[in-house]
Each structure stands twice: as structure tokens, then as C-alpha cells.
């Protein structure tokens, strides 16, 4: 009884936070708040909060639309307006939603942007996305932050300085102009302190999957856990409270030796521990997850939960170097890391979390993730001799989620894992 109550508390907290944000957005004008559209990777939540703006994340709206089965209609609307079938479906879903009145996931209208803050991190499509939105919202101020790619697997001082100069000479003055609020570095530092706390906590939460059985699923449940830290609450006490509560609940599960909670209740037996690369499919999220938990497969680490920031390698927002910290944060998001870095990170996860296998969910319309995944998979398979699986789907376009194809592929993959486990057991016995 107490276990369920504790579990619900973190979920309730998150629900309240998100509802509060959408309610504030719906009443932005009355509240006198400016609205800032931005993206999850490289999101400058602390800076947005320093200027008392409300954030809108178009890709979150898109995935929420998909989970509510509304994305197909939005995508069609965009395609009727010259958007290609072959480009990012987040973009089309967002454009379609806008064309149909911009009603957000809670049923409330999302206000038009005062600022389009493009912290262009790890995804070229973001740039094209805001070029498109600028044509739709000509009065919005576009603030562009170019985040250099970690092409040589490093963040050099000159890369950081390039970003800091952009913050100082372009981003902050423009935010001051739009909001009429003077930049307050002490306020930013306070937010950054809270960010670092939340980052410590979420890192600890994702480390708990090292336990056997893993108390959580780091992919299907992980996408909920990263919600607050990614959608504008990083840098707030609310986020710290949420993650403290969540961690407490997870520790109770560990003490009780319990596995992850699924939509159909607790997972009884942990048969396979997997690391997953790539975003999930949102249109059939539940069905997709079910294929895994029905087979006793738990995801112990995923790259997708690192799109809004990689915290497991030790990096944290440093309040003493506020603008440098923001710069490093942007550069340190998963898709802004080069392919060998991504491979190393995934190999580390497979080894440290004692995973039995590695699965790539290749997303048709997300080249930032997908281009290079086959080479990554081969390298991981060769160097760790770990069984690899490969499936294809899409973010929010239901036309590209083929349940039976994915199920068949995964069933074959799990059979392979089963065989391998048997062989390993036999060898141990021998």
C-alpha cells in the first residue's frame, strides 16, 4: 500500500508541474510572461527562467500529439502544404498542429512565440524547423545560438568562448530587449545550482539500473523521468523535489528486490538486460514497450535519455562559470557528440550495466540519430561480442510503425539471446 502511494507521489508531482506549465502558457498574456519556443537538446532553461519567460518545446508537443493519436492528421495537414513525406515528422506534426489552431496536449491553446530560441545542438533539422516557424510567426524574435559539434571528441576553450560570445553579445541583449528584464547573473547562478542538484539526482536514478533486477526501465519509463529536467524545470526547486521523491521510491523498490513498473503492473522476471540506441516510437508507445516487457526485457540504459544532456560522464552545470556552463551543457548533449564518442558511451553502458544485448531503434525521420547507427552497431558487436538487434520505426508518423515486423524481429532477437544464455550456462557448468 505504502509502496503504491510513494510511486504515485512522483508521478503526481510531475503531472502537476506539467499541467502548471501549460496552464501558465495558456494564460501567458494575463500573467505578463513572454513565450519562448526552444528545443530539448541544448535547452537553455536556466537562462529562459532568468528572464521569466515560459518555454514551449515543439518536439514535446509533437510526441504528446502522437501519444494522443493526433499526429497522423497533423502530418497530413503539413504534407498538404508542400512538406515532404521524407523529412522529420516532429516538424510536420508541429506545423500541422499550428495550422489546426495550435491546441496543445492539455487541450489549451499554445500562445504564439515572442522568442524563437534556436540553440542549435546536434540536430541540423532544428535550424530548418525554426526557419519554417519564423515565416509563420514573423513578429517573433529569432535568437540563434550556434553550438559547435564535438567533432574531435572534445569541447575546446575556443568552442566555449565562441558560445559565450554569442550569449553575451547576441542572446542576452536580445532577451533583455524582448522581456524588458535586465540580465541578473546572480539569479542565473541560483538556477544553475539547482540544475546541478537535479543532474546529480537523475544520474543517480539512472545508475540504479545496475542493480539486479533493475528497479526501473531506463528507456520506456526513462522518457518520463527525463521530462522535468528537459522541459523547462531544470534549475528549479520543483525539479529537485521531484527527483528526490523519485529516487526515494526507486530505493524502496531496490530494497524490496522489485523490477520495473510497466503499464500492466510490475515486471515479474528480468530475463534480458538491454541497452537501446535511438528515440522510441511515440504513436504506439505502449505496444512497443509491451513487446519488451512481455519477453522479460528491461532496458538498463538508453541513449535517448541523454539527448537533453549527458550527465553520466561527470559533467554538471557549474554556477561559478555560468555562461561557460551553459555553453558546455549545449555541446555535451548526446547527438552533439561524434560517432566514436557515441560508440564509447554505449559500450560503457553495456559493460557497466552488465547488459545482455544492444538494440537499435532506427528512426526513419531522424538523421541526427540514425545516420551512422549501422556502423556503430557493427563496431559494438565486434568489440564487445554482444548480440545486437535492429528495428525500424518512426517518431510520430504512425505509417512507419509496423507492429508485426518489429515484434517478429524482436522475438527472433530474444530467441538468440536465450540461446546464447543457455550456451553460456552450459559452458560455465562444463
Amino acid at each position, binding site marked *: 500500500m505504502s509502496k503504491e502511494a510513494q510511486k504515485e507521489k512522483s508521478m503526481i508531482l510531475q503531472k502537476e508541474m506539467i499541467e502548471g506549465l501549460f496552464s501558465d502558457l495558456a494564460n501567458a498574456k494575463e500573467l505578463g510572461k513572454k513565450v519562448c519556443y526552444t528545443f530539448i537538446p541544448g535547452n537553455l532553461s536556466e537562462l529562459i527562467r532568468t528572464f521569466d519567460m515560459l518555454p514551449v518545446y515543439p518536439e514535446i508537443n509533437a510526441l504528446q500529439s502522437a501519444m494522443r493519436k493526433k499526429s497522423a492528421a497533423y502530418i497530413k495537414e503539413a504534407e498538404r502544404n508542400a512538406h*515532404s513525406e521524407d523529412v522529420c515528422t516532429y516538424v510536420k506534426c508541429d506545423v500541422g498542429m499550428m495550422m489546426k489552431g495550435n491546441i496543445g496536449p492539455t487541450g489549451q491553446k499554445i500562445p504564439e512565440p515572442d522568442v524563437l530560441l534556436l540553440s542549435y545542438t546536434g540536430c541540423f533539422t532544428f535550424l530548418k524547423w525554426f526557419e519554417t516557424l*519564423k515565416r509563420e510567426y514573423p513578429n517573433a524574435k529569432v535568437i*540563434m545560438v550556434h553550438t559547435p559539434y564535438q567533432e574531435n571528441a572534445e569541447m575546446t576553450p575556443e568552442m566555449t568562448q565562441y558560445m559565450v*560570445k554569442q550569449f553575451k553579445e547576441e542572446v542576452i541583449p536580445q532577451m533583455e530587449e524582448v522581456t524588458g528584464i535586465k540580465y541578473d547573473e546572480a539569479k542565473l547562478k541560483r538556477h544553475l545550482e539547482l540544475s546541478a542538484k537535479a543532474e546529480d539526482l537523475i544520474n543517480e536514478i539512472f545508475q540504479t539500473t545496475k542493480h539486479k533486477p533493475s528497479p526501473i526501465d531506463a528507456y520506456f519509463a526513462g522518457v518520463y523521468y527525463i521530462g522535468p529536467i528537459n522541459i523547462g524545470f531544470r534549475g528549479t526547486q520543483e525539479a529537485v523535489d521531484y527527483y528526490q521523491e523519485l529516487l526515494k521510491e526507486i530505493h524502496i523498490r531496490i530494497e524490496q528486490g522489485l523490477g520495473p513498473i510497466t503499464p500492466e503492473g510490475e515486471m515479474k522476471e528480468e530475463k534480458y538486460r538491454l541497452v537501446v540506441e535511438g528515440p522510441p516510437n511515440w504513436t504506439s508507445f505502449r505496444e512497443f514497450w509491451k513487446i519488451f516487457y512481455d519477453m522479460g526485457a528491461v532496458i538498463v540504459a538508453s541513449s535517448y535519455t541523454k539527448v537533453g544532456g549527458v550527465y553520466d560522464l561527470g559533467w554538471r552545470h557549474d554556477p561559478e562559470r555560468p555562461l561557460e556552463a551553459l555553453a558546455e551543457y549545449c555541446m555535451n548533449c548526446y547527438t552533439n557528440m561524434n560517432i566514436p564518442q557515441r560508440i564509447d558511451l554505449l559500450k560503457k553502458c553495456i559493460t557497466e550495466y552488465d547488459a545482455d544485448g544492444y538494440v537499435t531503434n532506427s528512426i526513419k525521420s531522424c*538523421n541526427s540519430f*540514425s*545516420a551512422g547507427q549501422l556502423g556503430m552497431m557493427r563496431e559494438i558487436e565486434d568489440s564487445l561480442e554482444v548480440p545486437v538487434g535492429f528495428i525500424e520505426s518512426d517518431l510520430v508518423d504512425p505509417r512507419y510503425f509496423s507492429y508485426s515486423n518489429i515484434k517478429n524481429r524482436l522475438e527472433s532477437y530474444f530467441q538468440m539471446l536465450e540461446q546464447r544464455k543457455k550456451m553460456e550456462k552450459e559452458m560455465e557448468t562444463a
Partner: protein
Amino acid sequence: MKELKEILQECKELSFDLNFTRAKNWKEEKEGRVLVGYMPIYFPREIIHAAGAMPVGIFGGGDIKQIIKGDAYYQSYICHIPRSIMEIALDKHLDHIDGFIFPSICDVIRNLSGIFKQQKIGKFVKYMDFPQNFLPEIGGVFYQQEMQHVLKYIKELNGVEVTIEALNHSIELYNRNRQLIDFIYRIRQDYPWRLSIEEVYCVVRAGTVIPVEEHNAILEQVCEHIKEDIGVPQDKIKVVISGAFCEQPALGLIRAIEEAGCYVVDDDYMLGSRMILGDVDATTDHPLESIAISYIKQSQYSSSIYDVHNPKENRLAKIVKDRGADGVIFAAASFCDPSLLDAPIFQNAFDKMGIRYISFQFSENINQYKVIKEQVGTFSDSIKLWENEEVVSI
């Protein structure tokens, strides 16, 4: 002076030589020479030249190279060029090229740089992060730092310390190169029958795989030839091609568009060779700064450059007007994010401006053009026959 026919044949052979024979020979002519491969769209070749190396354009395998190994690296829904570049790399066509530069175009080319690193292809691999900040003191400085990295890589191979004089000399050579190409396009604007678009394409593309001095000599001769009133005018409309700046259409497709009734008076096929509009200052003590400023202030529009302060639809519309074109053909490589994501922006604007257009997608290896030819032919006919009718976009 050579016959035009002979020059054109040479250019065609150079353009599609996947063994990069001329570059290879250039390297073997003298010990310590370095070849630096670069992918589309644009790279400031001046700096490679000034460092005593030779830039070599790598534009994929086209319809010449059968893809077998490359498909194992890229899913079916990713454009064709990365798999054909992998194919030519794995088949050792690039073995004599020392380093590789991947300019920031899109996520696919960016991640291909990582695959090159992972596969340890070449002595260096550099993803060239072009600035998306267009203030000289911010983006311009960052761009200079990026160029310095490339020079450092080359110096590690050939020991050459680049001088101001060498850079200014290289800038002059490439200025001349762009002037000559520009001259060809200006002639074609009024007399497109003097040199077909297929021929122009080969003449420009050949310059990406030979020393710039040799290319300038070729261009000088071509310009002399087309000053003469050669060729026979045909009843064709004039169009601008947009969207084929990275993965290149097969030569047959380039030819088919013109055969179907459209003189192509401007295009972005070999955009990198024409990226900088006008000259780069070759007289300063800060030549890298000159190159950076030219990119920031004098670049052609591109789907890979953030444009809200200088909208691309207005810039393309100006090209259409200046060239006296009747319409635009949007030709995007299949699954090309930058080009396809720009399509609604262009098309919505052109609907309002009354600029006629059609669009299609291609892949570098397609060699059946019947459907595209019919589409282009219909577009041409509709303009020729009903020029004064109300505009209806196809």
C-alpha cells in the same frame, strides 16, 4: 588554344574519374605533396592550396559506382551520397587522399565524418563547423579558428607553414576561377545554346579534381570559345535549378532537363565553386579574415546556412529575375533534409510571388529519366503556350 570539343571531353573524363587520376599524378610528381578531399557543399579551397596541398572534391559515386558495401552502412531512408562515398572509400578509390573534410551541410554528412574516423580512413578527418553566427567578431573569428585547424593538420603532413603571401596568391587564383565561371554563366544567361548545361557542369566540376592553375587555363579557353556566336538557338524556356547542391544528379538527368525544353540559366549543382559572390580581398595582412568575411557577407544562399535575416526565397527570386528565367525547377535528392525542408518555404513564397515552378526528387544513381523529362517538358510547354495565362503551379 584547344578545340572546344576536346576541352569538353577532357572535362567530362576528369569530372567522373572516381580514381582521381589527375590528383594522384599531381601528388606523385613531387615528394611530400598532400591531397585533401572535401565533401559538398563549400570549402575555402584557397587555404589548402596555400598550404602546398591540393583540394579534391568528392561528390559521391553518381550512376557509375555500384553500391554493395555502402548499403551496409546506411538505412534505406537515408540519401544516397554517404553510401556511395563509403563505397568508393572501401573500394580504395580514396587511398591516395591524405585527409578528409566534411563541411557542415546536414546531420548525414556530419555523422559520415564520424564513420570515417571510426573506420580510420585517411590521416585526418575534419568536420568543418561553418559558423551560423554572422558577426565577423564572433562567427568570423570561430571560422578562422576552424580554418587554422585544417592548416595544422596539413602542416603535420607536409611541414608547410602558410604565409600571408601564399594565402593572398591562392585567393587571387580562386578569385580568377570564380570570375571565369561567372563569365560562363553570364554568357549562358543570354546565349544558353552556346554551351549546354551538361557541358557547363563538366567544365565546372572538373575544377574540383585538378589544380586550380590548370582549371583556370581551361576556363580561359572555354570563355574565349563561347564569346563567339556558336550553336543554334532553340525554342526553350529558361529555368533556374535549385536544391541539388550536395548529392549530384547523374549527367543524363542534367542533360534530360535541357533536352525536355528548359535552358538552365542558373543552378546550384556545383554550388561550392560559386559560393562566394564576387572577389575575396587578396591584399590584406589577414587573409584568413578575408576568407571568413567573404563567407559571412558574400555567400550565395544555401539550405545549410541559417537565413532568417536574409531569406532565401527572396534571394532565389532575385536570381530568377536577374537571369530572366521563366521558372524554377526544384530538384532535391531523395531524403535530402536541407533541400526538402526548404521546399515549403520556397513554394509558399513563390505561389505568392507568381513565380512558376515544378519539383521532383532524384537519386545520384537513377538513370531512367522518362517521367522527369515528361514533367519538365510539360512545364516548358505550359509556359511557352500559355505564357500570359494566370499562373497555376504544377
